[in-house]
């Protein structure tokens, strides 16, 4: 009798777990489908190049912003990861560095916005600009760049390093000629992931880079403010009255497509990398 009830309980509980998973996955999948369906059907050539609220300017702005973000974050993040995997030998300093990285990753994005406003916009006199926004976003994605690069570097087997050192190469030569080239695909995957994250962020660029303009939407220099897709969507939904619903849906769709697209690319790259590993 008891055994039967235990088995019944198990069946019931597993059904409950099924339900949990369905509740977690299905609604979000559902709204993504709705967004793709409504957004893609609203999207038209005229919506992209037309005015006002053409999507071209915010798309260009976002691409410029995340490219610059990547250019700033990549050298810093990769160098930090090289330090952690190749040069550091443990100890309290490294523990402190790791704690700092974890904490940077936990700082709310709007607080990065405040910091960017105080340091880049005000103190460095960048103003509300492409450059200030990219610096702020670079800080935001730095922990992600460091941790993904570190993972890629750790995947390179020690035997390769030892072989290089045994041939008389210095530590830096080993890092540059042996470790980094072998870790490069993994590092690039991490960078794509980081840039995808930056492309979807709104709060950090609210006061550092983004603006809303119908007349002069394209930046002429690094010190000009930009239109950006997430900010454009936010402004059209919250602040500008009478924007056609089709424009909002199309903007949301393009933003989601860019961000998810980069993530899918990274996931596929990572899977192929695992498949093709030579060691």
């Amino acid at each position, binding site marked *: 009798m008891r055994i039967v009830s235990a088995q019944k309980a*198990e069946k019931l*509980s*597993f059904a*409950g*777990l*099924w*339900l*949990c*998973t369905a*509740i*977690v*996955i299905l609604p*979000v*999948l559902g*709204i*993504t489908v*709705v*967004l793709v369906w409504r957004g893609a059907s609203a999207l038209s050539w005229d919506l992209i190049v037309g005015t006002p609220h053409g999507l071209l300017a915010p798309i260009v702005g976002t691409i410029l912003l995340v490219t610059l973000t990547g250019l700033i974050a990549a050298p*810093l993040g990769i*160098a*930090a990861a090289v*330090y*952690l995997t190749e040069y550091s030998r443990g100890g309290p300093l490294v523990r402190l*560095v790791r*704690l*700092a990285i*974890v*904490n*940077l990753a*936990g*700082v*709310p994005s*709007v*607080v990065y*916005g*405040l910091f960017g406003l*105080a*340091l880049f916009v005000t103190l460095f006199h960048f103003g509300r600009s492409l450059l200030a926004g990219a610096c702020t976003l670079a800080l935001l994605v*730095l*922990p992600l760049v*460091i941790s993904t690069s570190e993972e890629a570097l750790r995947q390179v087997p020690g035997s390769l390093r030892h072989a290089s050192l045994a041939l008389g190469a*210095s530590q*830096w030569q080993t890092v540059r000629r042996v470790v980094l080239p072998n870790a490069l695909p993994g590092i690039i995957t991490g960078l794509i992931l980081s840039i995808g994250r930056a492309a*979807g*962020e*709104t*709060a950090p660029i*609210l006061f550092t880079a983004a603006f809303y303009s119908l007349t002069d939407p394209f930046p002429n220099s690094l010190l000009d403010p930009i239109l950006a897709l997430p900010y454009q*969507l*936010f402004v059209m*939904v919250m602040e500008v009255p009478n924007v056609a619903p089709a424009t*909002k849906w199309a903007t*949301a769709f393009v*933003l*989601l497509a860019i*961000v*998810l697209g980069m*993530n*899918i690319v990274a*996931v596929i790259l990572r899977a192929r990398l695992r498949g093709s590993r030579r060691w």
Partner: protein
Amino acid sequence: MKRSIAGAREWLIESTIRLAGVLAIIFVLLIFAFLLHDALPVFSEASLSDLLTGRSWRPTSEPAQLGMLPLILGSLYVTVGALVIAIPLGLGCAVFISEVAPVRMREILKPLVEMLAAIPSVVYGFLGLLMIGPWLADLMDLPIGQFAALGSLMLAFMALPTIVSISEDAIRNVPVTLRSGSLALGATDWQTIVRVVVPAARSGIIAASLLGLGRAIGETMTVLMVTGNAAVIPQGLAGFLKPVRTMTATIAAEMGETAYQTPHYHALFTIGLVLFVITYKHNAHSECPKG
């Protein structure tokens, strides 16, 4: 001679790398210092207890009223609501993925959950404001489609990927010998999960929940868009169905229109400082169980 130039170059590069290594520490200190620098002048206007327990946030009135209690309680309501939804669901989902789902299904579910984390918060806000809010308001007969519980619901889904994937890792790391022992004693799979596996993964699950909490409390755009932005003190359980305003949303909504170096400007930096301190502490704790 050539050798020493190469040596000098190498020394320079390696020093740069070492500097980049400690950059994370420098940035954490810089963020703290800048927040503090731009927050401190507010104390010439109001004392710390005025700020933290003041019941009225009217930063543009004369003189400015900078009581943050409505904002702190707003954040608390939305975050607690989100965790009440997200922790049980996330734990159930994590147990399902690691213990129950067939291997095939697991390989689809894991990347899918990770993908959910990539959806931008402004897109969640857009959908919450245009679709889910009005729909829920209709369903529950509410006057408006922007309220605290809607923020909780949206935040729950944003925190879930973190909670699921970290709990799942923790559950998977429970040694197989523990499971085998329990099964050998005649326990069913479910009894093993509840009495052995989940308790053994406890510290990882707690860490996952704390990280989810951090995500929820710091989330900005979604709550700004769906919670209605009324800086009032929420009352009782009914407060969940009324508009509130969180700390993060206040910064995002008001910093753009605030004049530089006014009490309002400093007060917003004080909110940022409070958020930084909250998330700092919690991260230091949530990393502990993992060593």
